[in-house]
């Protein structure tokens, strides 16, 4: 038995009942109402709760009959029954015709008629040849008078009883006969009483109940404990000296729908915050871009298969930007054609100045690195988490639009070693990597280029990203003469792991319930 637990969950009503009764007592709703001043609902609740705890056992069960005063009955109790009123009218004002009696008593003709019929049968009233009714104190008159008086007494008793109820077992034989004549089992119209039959269940305390009783006494619970602390109690100070009921703290709480960040967005914010903490300044730009910034400024030749990697979405209207900013256009065009002043041989072809204005949806975040160069500080560090678009069939590992995390570092002294140092910093700070390895890589816009592979504590070895030193053909047309480290990180794989997902499409789920239930792993 877990009585200690149980008593915490006892309602004050239960406590009150337990404290009042002993193993020898027989409990019922009526008993509780009588002894403890509870109302019907309270007494029934207390009994059913205690029974549900196996603290009470059924002792006896029986049907009792009661008579409940109807609205009509209340009227009779106040003004008298029709018989009483007709008899009084005839005795005091008779002889009278029936319609006149109806007038005097205010009763409907029908009721006057049936009352007269009943009383004339008993010989209390008589009618002459002129249909005048008069009081005839015949032999039966006194007996009839006694009945009338008894009915009247019953009506008045009922009228002053709680809920207008009379218990059948509290009535004498004559009373039972008379009340039966003016009662109906169903409905209340036309009868002074309604017959109510109800089941009385009696209980006695079980061993469990007695144990609870002992525990309640030991705990000093009185049943007077207060449920809610109310503002009134605080205003009035009436909380003082009151005991407050302990709650059942194990009951499952109800669900609360709260306002909440999306865990994927929070994850992206964490990455942004981390990069900011490492000294990176955020950049951002439009979703619609030109071939110029998306690829040409990155020294990707207009004809080259390197552009196959970035199969792009073309904007339908307008198809071309109005202009590309100078001097960047001319410098980039010259760099493609012959290397311009960069020391490069260039790609040795005729740069298409119309194609370069072609509008597309940004296909790589590096576009913003390129656009930032001409206004970048030295030393300077920049990053962006940018939505990019790819001409891909959407599936678990490909999306038509997705985020890329990219950035640049400008500095007189940055080089391959600081590039790798930075990548290792990312690996540890962003991915919690336990091991890092750089291998030669290829990107059209960096030379040298490396890929960074990391050993993630949960995912094992995978490619975290790529990086390199921007080619002079990329930086010099933008007026930048210091080395520029360029890097890109694939964070979606870590985001999926963080969110316990394995399908990229889920990152952008429209399913509200899924999003509500989704939690990211907490740091630490």
């Amino acid at each position, binding site marked *: 038995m877990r009585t200690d637990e149980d008593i915490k969950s006892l309602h004050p009503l239960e406590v009150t009942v337990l404290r009042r009764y002993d193993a020898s007592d027989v409990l019922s709703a009526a008993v509780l109402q009588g002894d403890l001043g509870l109302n019907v609902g309270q007494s029934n609740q207390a009994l059913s709760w205690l029974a549900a705890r196996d603290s009470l056992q059924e002792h006896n069960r029986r049907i009792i009959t009661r008579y409940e005063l109807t609205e009509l009955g209340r009227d009779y109790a106040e003004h008298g029954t029709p018989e009483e009123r007709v008899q009084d009218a005839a005795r005091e004002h008779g002889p009278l015709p029936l319609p006149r009696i109806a007038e005097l008593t205010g009763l409907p003709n029908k009721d006057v008629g049936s009352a007269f019929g009943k009383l004339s049968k008993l010989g209390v009233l008589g009618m002459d040849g002129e249909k005048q009714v008069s009081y005839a104190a015949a032999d039966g008159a006194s007996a009839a008078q006694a009945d009338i008086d008894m009915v009247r007494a019953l009506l008045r008793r009922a009228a002053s009883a709680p809920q207008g109820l009379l218990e059948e077992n509290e009535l004498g034989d004559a009373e039972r006969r008379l009340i039966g004549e003016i009662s109906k089992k169903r409905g209340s119209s036309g009868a002074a009483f309604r017959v109510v039959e109800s089941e009385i269940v009696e209980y006695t305390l079980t061993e469990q109940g007695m144990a609870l009783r002992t525990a309640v006494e030991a705990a000093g619970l009185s049943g007077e404990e207060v449920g809610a602390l109310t503002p009134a109690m605080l205003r009035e100070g009436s909380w003082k000296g009151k005991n407050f009921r302990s709650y059942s703290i194990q009951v499952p709480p109800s669900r609360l729908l709260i*306002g909440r960040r999306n865990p994927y967005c929070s994850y992206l914010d964490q990455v942004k915050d981390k990069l900011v903490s490492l000294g990176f*300044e955020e950049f951002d730009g439009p979703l619609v871009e030109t071939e110029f910034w998306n690829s040409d400024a990155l020294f990707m030749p207009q004809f080259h298969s390197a552009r*196959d990697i970035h199969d792009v979405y073309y*904007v339908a209207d307008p*198809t071309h930007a109005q202009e590309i900013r100078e001097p960047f256009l001319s410098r980039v065009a010259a760099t493609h054609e012959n290397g311009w002043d960069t020391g490069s041989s260039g790609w040795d072809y005729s740069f298409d100045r119309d194609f370069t204005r072609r509008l597309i949806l940004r296909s790589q975040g590096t576009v913003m690195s390129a656009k930032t160069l001409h206004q970048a500080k030295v030393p300077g560090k920049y990053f962006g988490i940018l939505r990019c678009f790819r001409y891909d069939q959407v599936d678990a590992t490909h999306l038509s639009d997705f985020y890329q995390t990219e950035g640049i570092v400008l500095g007189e002294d940055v080089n391959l070693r600081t590039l790798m140092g930075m990548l290792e910093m990312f690996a540890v700070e962003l991915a919690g990597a336990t091991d890092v390895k750089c291998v030669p890589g290829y990107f059209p816009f960096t*030379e040298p280029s490396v890929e960074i592979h990391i050993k993630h504590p949960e995912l094992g070895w995978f490619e975290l990203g790529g990086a390199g030193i921007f080619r002079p053909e990329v930086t010099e047309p933008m007026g930048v003469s210091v080395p520029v480290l360029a890097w890109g990180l694939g964070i979606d794989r870590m985001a999926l792991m963080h969110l316990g997902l394995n399908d990229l499409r889920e990152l952008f789920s429209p*399913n509200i319930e899924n999003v509500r239930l989704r939690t990211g792993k907490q740091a630490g």
Partner: protein
Amino acid sequence: MPKIELQQDELFKYSGRSFGADELEEALTIAKAEIDDPVDEDGLIKIELNDTNRPDLWSTAGLGRALRLYHGTGGSATYGFFSRPDSPVAVGDRRIVVDAELAERRPYIAAFAISGPPIAEVLLDDLIQTQEKLCWNYGRKRKAIAMGVYREDKIQYPVRYRAVDPDSTTFVPLGLDNELSLRQIIEQHPKGREFGGIVAALDKFPFLSDDSGAVLSFPPVINSADVGAVQAGDTRLFIEMTGTDLKPLLLACSIVACDLADAGYTIHPVQVEYPYDTPFGRTIVSPLYFQKPVGVELAYAERLLGVALNEDEAVQRLGKMGVRAEAASGLITAYPPEYRNDFLHPVDVVEDLMIGYGMNSFPSEPPRDFTVGRLTEAEIFSREVKTLLVGMGYQEMIFNYLGSRRDFIDNMYPQEQRTAAAAACVRIANPMSENFEFVRPSIIPQLLGAESVSAHAVYPHYIFEVGKVALRDADDNYGSRTVTALGAVVADAEAGFNLVSSQAAALFFYLGLEYDPSVVEDPRFMAGRVAALLVKGERVGILGELHPQVLENWGVTVPCAVIELDLDHVRRVNGSD
């Protein structure tokens, strides 16, 4: 990025050594190559090559050569058959005469012949794969480079490269046994349908035949079924390439020649005679070594690599990369190998130095420069807005930016307004599917999309997103603007104008902004239950109860009230005083 499939044993033969699986993975990093599929029971291995500027690595021989040189497990890679622009080697009667009419059509051709032992099946397969990769990835799907291989026994030099009438010229193409005109070939033959587009617009098509009139091929489409049908067991082959850009063409020719030389064949150069000028004159003997040496200041390499370099060691390390070099007075002069032309800038030699030294030669160090990190103003403001929305009980959502016409236009607007609504959107000219044809002009449609699939989620739904939308703007250089927007939807039996109106009031209050609601007509909303939101007289957003027709279009059966704000505009007008 090309992927090649090769016999691992053949690779090891060219490498001069074998590698364990992990060793190979590691060894391939010097070629920026990765194992795509490990070796199978037939000895085939699939390898992905990441460097699109190194087509010399896209073959068994080429990849094996890189490993051999790096590990010093075989002879050096020197090839005696190359001509220089100013010193051609002797060719005997191996000549190609080019017709003047090709100048404006497909002007260049390069070729050589080989002789040696009967060609094995595996080498033939490899040659075909090299042809495919070179012509597809490097030769832009045969547009820039197309390659043909023929039985030299059947050729009478000189070979003639001409432009011919596509309708009257006929031959039997490979794979068929009847003659077709060139026009019929591009219309009917599978290869014709695939590659015919390259020449279809020309009045005359490129055509290759020998001195006797025997047809070699119809470049860049298809070989003849006779001279152009090469088989295992052949001992003499003629290999030519045609194209539009001379240098890539010559490079591809050199790559294939070096591969076949490594395979044990003798290379016989061919002289091409043009009636017009080319970057290397009117007579070119191929394979041609045309690459120029690249000078790299040692100090420049040191600056980029972050370590001090020794001249002699640098030269030796470049040698591991197949790059002959000399060093004197702090200047390294690097001579690109015949099969490479990826040294556009000294920086490209620096990368070969990096790989030649190995990554372990460059201990990492953290960047030392101090810089101040910061978020964009738009991001900071967005976060403020998100915090307030979350405080109002909203769940943040995040959606893809691409969607369908149905989502963004048809479901939101009545028929007569759809054309105008679509015209305000950024549309994709080449969508992958109609599901991703438009960039979203508003966040509301996707929030309703979420509602349409979330009727099972306990109500009320308070959902929002702060993200980008794109709007057409004729005044903008790009014809559109990208805007940071807030979209919020309440879906609930109790959702209504008053609720979102109170929320907007709270939002503006805590953002420290005054705003005025103003009467507006918008068919997406119920008339009289929608307000434009003005800050300093400029419209920055809208709120109200969505029209039941819109909800019905989306299959949403719960009333929805929404707020949408252009956060960039809010920031702009707020900062304007």
